[in-house]
């Protein structure tokens, strides 16, 4: 059983002064599943991401990824171990081309960043890999465009492409559909499902849209005021009276 767990969080707390953004959160994320992390605004979802991926240090608690203690490791080392994330706001390299956005991540993964004088153009394998990733995301036609000129939904896909290019074992998506139209949301959900099926990468997703959550997640974690309120299958969460009461109200049937 233990081998199934890719990310194990034990007793994680994060305080900012007297305010606890996270309080004693313990969860296990199973390998090869899509896990959703839900909770109202301010529940501590993004803080959870930031503490795990090395942006903040936890106040107390331990984070174990693939059997390795990654508590308080800096962000670049966490990424190196195969735990990557996307961001809630579009967080890409705006003035660079779409291809370069993906290439930067590939250069980092293949440790070519300290190659100082050989032209990037001569790294054909890297460029082919970038092309494959863009094709998978349906962005191949935009490869040479400057990223800031893309449509919003496409930018969010670039964001996921950057994470994908670092060969992650697990991707943490922070509200991948934030600010999207229903059409864009549907496209993104299909994309995540496609990526999951094609790559088998473990996903952790925060998401506001309950329809999305219940349609793609194998397991759901519910955060409420910094505490883990419940965890379980979509069915269990749907029927959990505490979740209904504290957070979801009537909207569960959406």
């Amino acid at each position, binding site marked *: 059983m233990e081998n199934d767990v890719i990310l194990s969080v034990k007793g994680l707390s994060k305080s900012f002064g007297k305010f606890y953004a996270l309080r004693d959160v313990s969860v296990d994320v199973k390998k090869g599943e899509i896990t959703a992390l839900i909770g109202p605004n301010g529940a501590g979802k993004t803080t959870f991401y930031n503490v795990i*991926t090395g*942006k903040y240090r936890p106040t107390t608690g331990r984070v174990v990824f693939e059997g390795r203690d990654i508590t308080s490791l*800096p*962000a*670049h*080392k966490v*990424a*190196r171990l195969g735990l*990557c*994330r996307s*961001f809630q706001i579009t*967080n*890409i*390299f*705006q*003035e*660079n081309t779409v291809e*370069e*956005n993906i*290439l*930067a*991540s590939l*250069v*980092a*993964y293949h440790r*070519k*960043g*300290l*190659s*100082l*004088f*050989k*032209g*990037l*153009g001569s*790294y054909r394998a*890297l460029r082919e890999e970038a092309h494959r990733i863009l094709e998978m995301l349906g962005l191949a036609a935009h490869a040479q465009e400057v990223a800031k000129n893309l449509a919003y939904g496409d930018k969010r896909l670039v964001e996921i492409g*950057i*994470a994908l*290019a*670092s060969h992650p074992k697990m991707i943490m998506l922070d509200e991948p559909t934030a600010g999207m139209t229903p059409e864009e949301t549907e496209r993104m959900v299909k994309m995540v499902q496609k990526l999951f099926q094609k790559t088998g990468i473990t996903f952790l997703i925060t998401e506001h849209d309950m329809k999305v959550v219940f349609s793609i997640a194998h397991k759901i974690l519910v955060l409420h005021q910094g505490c883990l309120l419940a965890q379980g299958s979509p069915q269990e969460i749907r029927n959990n009276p505490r979740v209904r009461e504290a957070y979801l109200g009537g909207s569960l049937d959406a």
Partner: protein
Amino acid sequence: MEKGKSLKLAALLAGALFLFIFPHFAGVFAVLLLTEILIFALFALSFNLLFGYTGLLSFGHAAFFGLGGYAMAFMVQHFHLSMLPALAISTIVAALGAAIIGFFSIRRDEIYFAMLTLGFGMMIFTLVHQWRSLTGGSDGITGFEVPVLDLLVKKLSLFSPWAYYYFSLVVCLLGAILLWRLTLSPFGLILRSMRENPERVSFVGIDIKLYRWIAFTAAGLMAGVAGALFALYDRMASPSMVHWTMSAKPVLMAILGGPRVFLGPALGALIFYLLEHFITQYTQSWMIFLGAILVPIVIFFPQGVLGTLIAWAQRLIRREGHGE
């Protein structure tokens, strides 16, 4: 796109041809002016590796220009080294200085980085100004000759302005080519990505401090080459080389020419010196005119002169392409 490329190639060839042929027929004054422009072009290009490519605005880049210059003057004055060993040592001194100052400065970015580099720059200035036994204090190091260029098979005197011009041209071109290769490499892509979004770069597994440190050291090294050339050109190493107003020059040149285009700062250096030269014929307060030109450029053409010209050319070519 093809048309854009051939246009670019033609412009580069014309520029190179001019640099190699024109001085042969030019008078001594023009040759001296052009030498200084070349040296400052390299200085500005080295600065722009940090500013335009890595997104770090240094207000202390003159420290390495000065280190290179003083090291060169010192080596020639006291040890009578020939050109290439003296240049190599000056470069190493500047690179070491940049590695040390960079190690601390890159720990912060944006305005804090600018202030750290300014602070270190002022410290170096004070050191240079006060340490009379080593640096000659406010007099600087003077009274040396340009060393001979010992090519093993042949010794060349660089005494004449023309000889020194061509030597500087070769060194500056080599330096510029090295910097240019750097910007095109995977390393250069990581630098540009850090300029756009340092946080995101660290989340794909890059140690941004290490990369900033390397960029800082490389920029300082190349500034040292420029400084060494300048000390010989000026026949002196003086505290003005490390003064903070000297640090401001590459900033102005990069913004004038365009920090997002590789040769932008070099064109900026050319414009800067031509303006200074022509305006000071009429008035000593040429800085007023420099300001009057700089302000509209920053407000209306933030891409700088070269950046704006290239954007125009691209638009023209695209429009033509549609017409066909």
